[in-house]
C-alpha cells in the first residue's frame, strides 16, 4: 500500500514537479474548454497556425533579452494577439481562401521564428523547449501568469456563454438579435491567443493543436450539450496532463508528448467503445 502511494506521490516531492503539475493541469483545462469552440467552429487549422505563428515573437524576445526567459510570456502573448486579429481580418476581406492564407502565414512565421533563434549559437536546446515545451522549467512567476490568464479565459467564456453559443450555432440569429458579432468574434480570437501563450511553456507550439482539439473532440462524442462538452473536455484535459506527467517521470518521455499521447489514447478508446455509437458497436 505504501509502495503504491509512493509511486503516485514521489514525483511531486520535488517543487519543480509540483509546479509543473499545477501548470499542466491549468493548461490542460483551459485548452480543452477553448478547444470546444475550436472543434465546433472548424478552427483546428487556425489553432495550429496560431500556435506556430507565436514563435517569431518569442524568438525576438529571446534575442532582445539575451536568452532570459522572464519576458517570453509577454512576447508570446503580443505575437498571438496580433496574429489572431490579423487572420480574423484577412479571412473577412481576402481574395484568397482562408485556409490558404493561414497556410502561407503559418509556415512563414514559423520559418521566421526558427531563423531568428538560429542566429544564437547554442540554440538547439532552447528551440526544442519552445517547440515541445518544458514543464520542469515552470517558475513560480510562470505559474502565477498561467493561473491569472487561464482564469481570465475561463471567466470570459463563462460570462459570454450564451452569446458565444448563438454566434457559433447561428450567425444569422446573432445578427437579427443585433449582437455585436464582430466584437464577440474578436474576443474569441483573443481568448485563443491567450490560451496559446499560456500553453506554450507546457506543451510547446508544435503539439499545442492536439491539446486544443483532442479532448474537445472526445467530449463531442460523449455529450449532447455545449456546457456538458466543456466539462467533460476539461476533465479529459486535466486527466491527460496528470497522467502524461507521470509517464514523463517514470519513462523519461518529453512531457508535452506524453500529455498529448494520453489525450489521444482516451480519444481512441472513446471512439471505439463509445456506448451505442462507437465503432465496435456499429460492427455488430
Amino acid at each position, binding site marked *: 500500500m505504501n509502495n503504491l502511494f509512493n509511486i503516485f506521490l514521489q514525483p511531486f516531492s520535488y517543487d519543480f514537479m509540483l509546479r509543473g503539475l499545477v501548470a499542466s493541469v491549468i493548461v490542460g483545462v483551459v485548452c480543452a474548454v477553448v478547444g470546444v469552440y475550436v472543434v465546433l467552429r472548424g478552427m483546428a487549422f487556425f489553432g495550429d497556425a496560431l500556435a506556430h505563428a507565436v514563435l517569431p515573437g518569442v524568438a525576438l524576445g529571446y534575442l532582445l533579452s539575451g536568452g532570459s526567459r522572464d519576458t517570453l510570456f509577454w512576447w508570446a502573448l503580443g505575437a498571438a494577439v496580433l496574429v489572431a486579429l490579423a487572420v480574423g481580418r484577412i479571412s473577412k476581406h481576402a481574395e484568397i481562401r482562408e485556409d490558404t492564407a493561414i497556410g502561407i502565414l503559418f509556415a512563414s512565421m514559423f520559418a521566421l521564428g526558427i531563423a531568428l533563434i538560429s542566429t544564437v549559437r547554442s540554440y538547439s536546446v532552447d528551440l526544442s523547449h519552445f517547440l515541445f515545451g518544458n514543464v520542469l522549467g515552470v517558475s513560480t512567476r510562470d505559474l502565477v501568469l498561467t493561473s491569472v490568464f487561464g482564469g481570465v479565459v475561463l471567466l470570459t467564456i463563462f460570462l459570454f456563454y450564451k452569446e458565444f453559443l*448563438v454566434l457559433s*450555432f447561428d450567425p*444569422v440569429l446573432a445578427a437579427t438579435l443585433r449582437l455585436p458579432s464582430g466584437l464577440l468574434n474578436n474576443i474569441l480570437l483573443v481568448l485563443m491567443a491567450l490560451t496559446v501563450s499560456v500553453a506554450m511553456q507546457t506543451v510547446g507550439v508544435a503539439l499545442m493543436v492536439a491539446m486544443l482539439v483532442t479532448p474537445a473532440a472526445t467530449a463531442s462524442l460523449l455529450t449532447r450539450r455545449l456546457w456538458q462538452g466543456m466539462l467533460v473536455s476539461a476533465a479529459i484535459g486535466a486527466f491527460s496532463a496528470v497522467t502524461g506527467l507521470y509517464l514523463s517521470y517514470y519513462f523519461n518521455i518529453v512531457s508535452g508528448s506524453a500529455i498529448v499521447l494520453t489525450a489521444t489514447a482516451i480519444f481512441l478508446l472513446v471512439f471505439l467503445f463509445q456506448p451505442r455509437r462507437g465503432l465496435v458497436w456499429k460492427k455488430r
Partner: protein
Amino acid sequence: MYPRTRHQPDKPILDVLHLSVSYEGRGALENITFHLHAGERVAVVGPNGAGKSTLFKVVAGVLPPTSGEVKISGYGPRGHICIAYVPQRSQVDWRFPASVADVVMMGRIRQVGFFRWPRRADWDTVHAALEAVDMNSMANRQIGELSGGQQQRTFLARALAQEAELVLLDEPLNGLDTPSQEAILSLLDKLRQQKITVMVATHDLGQAASRFDRVMLLNHQLVRFGSPQDVLTSENLLRAYGGHAQLIRGADGTTTLADTCCDGEEEHE
C-alpha cells in the same frame, strides 16, 4: 439596455422602399417596394435564385441594402430584435451540441441580457413557446434527433420565445410530408391570432394560393404583389419563371405550376 427601438403602431409593420441589392455588380434585387400590415400572411414565390433569401436577409437587417430602405414599424431595421429569420433546414448544423430547449432559449438572450443567466420567467417563456408548437415533450432532445417537421417547429418556437412580430420563414415546408406541412401551416394560423406578421418563401403555388392572404411573385424584381387570384395568373407566372416553368391547366380551370427546380437550395453568394 434593450436594442429594441420604439414602434409606431399606426404605421405598417414593414415598409420596403425602392430596395435594391447587388453583389459584385450583379443585381440580386431591383427596386422593390411593398408594405405589410400587422398580422398579414404573405407567400413569397419565384424561381430559384430569384432573391427570396436575399430579400429576407435585408428585411431582417442582416444584409445591408445597396440602395433604398427598409422600415420596421416606421423605423430602420437595425435596432429591432422583433424580426425572426427561420433558416432553411439545410443551412443548420444539426449535429450542434444543443437541446431543443437550448435552441429556443437562444431566441431570448437579448431579453435575458449580457452577463446574466436565464431566469425562471425566461424558461417559462421557452416552455410556453414549445407548448405552442407541441414540442414540450421533446425539450431535452438533441436537435439532430428530430424529424424535419419537429426541427421546423423548434425554430418557430424560437421565434415565439424571441417575441418576434415579423417572422420570415425560408422554405419551411420543403422536404416535409403532408401532415408535417399541415402542422406548420396551422401553427401559422395561431401566429395570425397574435398579430404576428409572417412571410414565407415557398415553391408550392397551390399552398400559396390557398393558405395565404397575399402572394408576392419575385424574380429579382417584384413581378406582382396582391391577392392570390390576381397574382397567380399564367401570364404573371410565365413572366416570373420564364422557361423554367411548366404550366399545367387543371380540369377545373386552375393553373398549377411545376417548378423545374426542386431541391429548394438557393444560391446565396
